[in-house]
């Protein structure tokens, strides 16, 4: 599938970036099914995952056949952020990943919904969902940051560990009509407010990995991603052409 790894046209690049973020994060949240710390979180995490999967399906359909794109692309053709492919870790890691991403996605969709580009209709619906996701992540950041010593330690460790994947969210994407610098400023301000309220502070250090040459938007992913795809695509690939 060498054609897949070629740089897609601008419109497709933007569609795939947004679609793959939602698809892959949804998949990660699906791994929580039956493992959540309380039943209410089984419901909440599945609910968020379902919203994201819904967004992914709309977006992928803008670029082609949703199942072909989800199940038959190789790792190098996926355009999602490295952040969303990171393993779930403990609940604090999952919440830190949700906090970083949902604040970003909410700011992004708010801006896209206000414009008249190709993503405006989807964004108008998704912005309501992302407001809920953001709320959920913020509430848990407060509980964990301002809970026990143990939860505070874990939340801080999770925020630190994922920090290096957040810079990628503000790289320009071809065909995505937003101002990355303004988006980043709003994201930082919103994140700073939540962390302050939780008695935490912004992690220190660079927001791109020490090795910054590659990133998910160019199809360069972290190692756990290959295993995620192997699991996600196995059954579909085992029965070429079958309908489900």
């Amino acid at each position: 599938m060498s054609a897949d790894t070629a740089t897609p046209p601008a419109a497709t690049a933007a569609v795939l970036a947004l679609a793959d973020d939602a698809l892959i994060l949804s998949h990660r949240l699906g791994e929580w099914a039956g493992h959540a710390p309380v039943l209410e979180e089984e419901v909440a995490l599945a609910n968020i995952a379902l919203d994201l999967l819904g967004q992914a399906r709309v977006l992928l359909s803008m670029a082609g056949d949703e199942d072909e794109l989800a199940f038959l692309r190789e790792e190098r053709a996926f355009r999602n952020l490295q952040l969303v492919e990171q393993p779930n870790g403990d609940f604090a890691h999952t919440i830190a990943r949700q906090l970083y991403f949902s604040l970003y996605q909410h700011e992004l969709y708010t801006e896209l919904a206000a414009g008249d580009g190709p993503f405006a209709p989807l964004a108008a619906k998704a912005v309501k969902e992302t407001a809920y996701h953001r709320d959920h992540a913020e509430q848990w950041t407060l509980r964990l940051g301002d809970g026990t010593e143990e939860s505070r330690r874990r939340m801080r460790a999770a925020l630190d560990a994922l920090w290096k994947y957040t810079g990628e969210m503000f790289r320009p994407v071809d065909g995505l009509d937003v101002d990355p610098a303004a988006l980043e400023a709003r994201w930082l301000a919103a994140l700073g407010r939540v962390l302050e309220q939780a008695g935490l502070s912004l992690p220190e250090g660079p927001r791109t990995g020490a090795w910054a040459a590659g990133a998910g938007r160019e199809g360069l992913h972290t190692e756990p991603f290959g295993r995620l795809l192997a699991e996600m695509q196995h059954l579909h690939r085992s029965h070429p052409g079958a309908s489900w």
Partner: protein
Amino acid sequence: MNTPTLTPSGPQGPEATFEDTIARDQRIEPRDWMPDGYRSTLIRQIAQHAHSEIIGMQPEGEWITRAPSLRRKAILFAKVQDEAGHGLYLYSAAETLGADRTDMTARLIDGRQKYSSIFNYPTHTFADVGVIGWFVDGAAICNQVPLCRTSYGPYGRAMVRVCKEESFHQRQGYELLLTMMRGTDEQREMVQDAVNRWWWPSLMMFGPPDADSPNSARSMAWKIKRHSNDELRQRFVDMTVPQAQKLGVTLPDPVLRWNEERGHHDFGAPDWDELKRVVSGDGPCNAERIARRRAAHEEGAWVREAASAHAAKQATRVREGAAA
């Protein structure tokens, strides 16, 4: 009890009032007097029902990350989410009887309270997901639709909502199987194989035969249960046989046939020894199901403690704010 003027009271005492309420097909509500046996039977049944929803998330949840299309993945997510919701709903109903959710969870992971035998069977292929929808949710509906009229109000009302969603899941499961049967030879084989493996365990979901069901008589007298195990099993078989024909699969029972005189299908007996083994903890996945539930609970302890600590801090802040 909305009609106090019709309710005998005073010299007849609360027991007579209870019996009368049951006799008139009225509902018992949380604040009403009820016999200890009625209360404990209901707690046991509702808790086990709730546990079944929660453990039942596992066999299907196994396939969320492997679902072969995005549509099926979305359906599975929604279904597993509904099951968690049903569990919450049922735990709430049990709590109206004085049971405590934390305690019920402890009893589940200690093996002191049971859950439906069916969830101790493994899901081997994606067709199992469809067959669980068709058989397991179908059997659950046969059991639960009469429970919408059970004598305990909160349980009956929980069942109304649960049944609506279960019917939807059942149709989705059957629709998956229809799609697979129109597909490749491999897909059709998967469906038949799953049917073969799940048929007898599904019949066991209704419990032991009436002659061997110690709690049934009292539950029926109290109108907690409205039909016997064997009646409900028969209803399930009669409902499922034509669906199997339409689907184009066979049911793995050589004696299964329509009995004109009875107006019902005759069918073979499940392996009751197997049911006993599974219910007593010795089924294919009992240990794994409980271990996973226990791990989720134990690994989540620090999260629940954080939530409690945060809530307590917030409450203190509100109090101090009000005092200042």
